[in-house]
């Protein structure tokens, strides 16, 4: 059962990603990325990470990509504003050929690990309780640094927007 769900989610994720790099309209690319991210949220649920499943849906699909969609619609992009990409497919094929050895190397490295069943664990692993314990015991300093980073990003975004107004 998990196999079937995993295969379906993988096909959805990969087709969404292919659509993202193949569509020439920006808004279709963003919608394809949402499809990929929701499928990946399902894969996180299969990997007994319920908290990341929710975070992926709420923060990634709900906040980041929605912000991206807002910006795309807000900019009111016409067709002649889009860059022309005449040799897109050639670059994709050449890049895929160049990436193949790298992928084989990584997969070979992971192949040496002993195989282990990856069924969904129940209550003894992956709950939000475990997550919070781990976060606030071993990762407290990075957690606080993240808040500083978010504050810096907020100030940076405000500064960019304000500078543009002064120019007009």
């Amino acid at each position, binding site marked *: 059962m998990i*196999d079937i769900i*995993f295969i379906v989610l993988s096909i959805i994720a*990969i087709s969404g*990603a292919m659509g*993202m*790099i193949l569509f*020439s309209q920006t808004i279709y*690319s*963003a919608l394809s990325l949402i499809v*990929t*991210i929701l499928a990946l949220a399902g*894969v*996180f649920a299969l*990997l*007994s*990470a319920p*908290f*990341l499943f929710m975070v992926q849906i709420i*923060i*990634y699909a709900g*906040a*980041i*990509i929605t912000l*991206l969609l807002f*910006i*795309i619609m807000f*900019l009111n*992009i016409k067709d002649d*504003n*889009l*860059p022309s*990409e005449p040799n897109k497919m050639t*670059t*994709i094929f050449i*890049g*895929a050929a160049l990436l193949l050895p790298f*992928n084989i190397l*990584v*997969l070979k490295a*992971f*192949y040496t*690990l002993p*195989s*282990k*069943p*990856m*069924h969904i664990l129940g209550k003894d692993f992956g709950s939000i309780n*475990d*997550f919070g314990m*781990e*976060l606030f015991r071993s990762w407290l300093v990075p957690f606080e640094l*993240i808040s500083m*980073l*978010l504050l810096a*990003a*907020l100030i940076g*975004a405000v500064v*960019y*927007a304000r500078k*543009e107004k002064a120019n007009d």
Partner: protein
Amino acid sequence: MIDSLLAYITLAMILFSIGFLGVVSRKNIFVIYMSIELMLNAINLIFVSLGRYYESMQPQVIAMIIIAIAAAEAAVFLSLIVVLYRRKKSLNSDIFTILSQKDSHE
């Protein structure tokens, strides 16, 4: 075979490769940004599957931190794109190599 670590790693590597190809082959700055997000997601998937493999919670915490960094990146990157698009009226990443204000025709 499907239900093991290698399947998840394969999916993550395929998504990472697609993201890399998007960065290399496209000129639309939004698609480049989305490809970077896709690569971050693929790395998250590798972290979480290794965490499930070793039954450790640490990779999930790292994945959440990566998501927070992606949110911060989104705010700065998108405001930067709004400013650049208003100046140059284009989404071509080649045009953005010149950031000087004198070259903008207002």
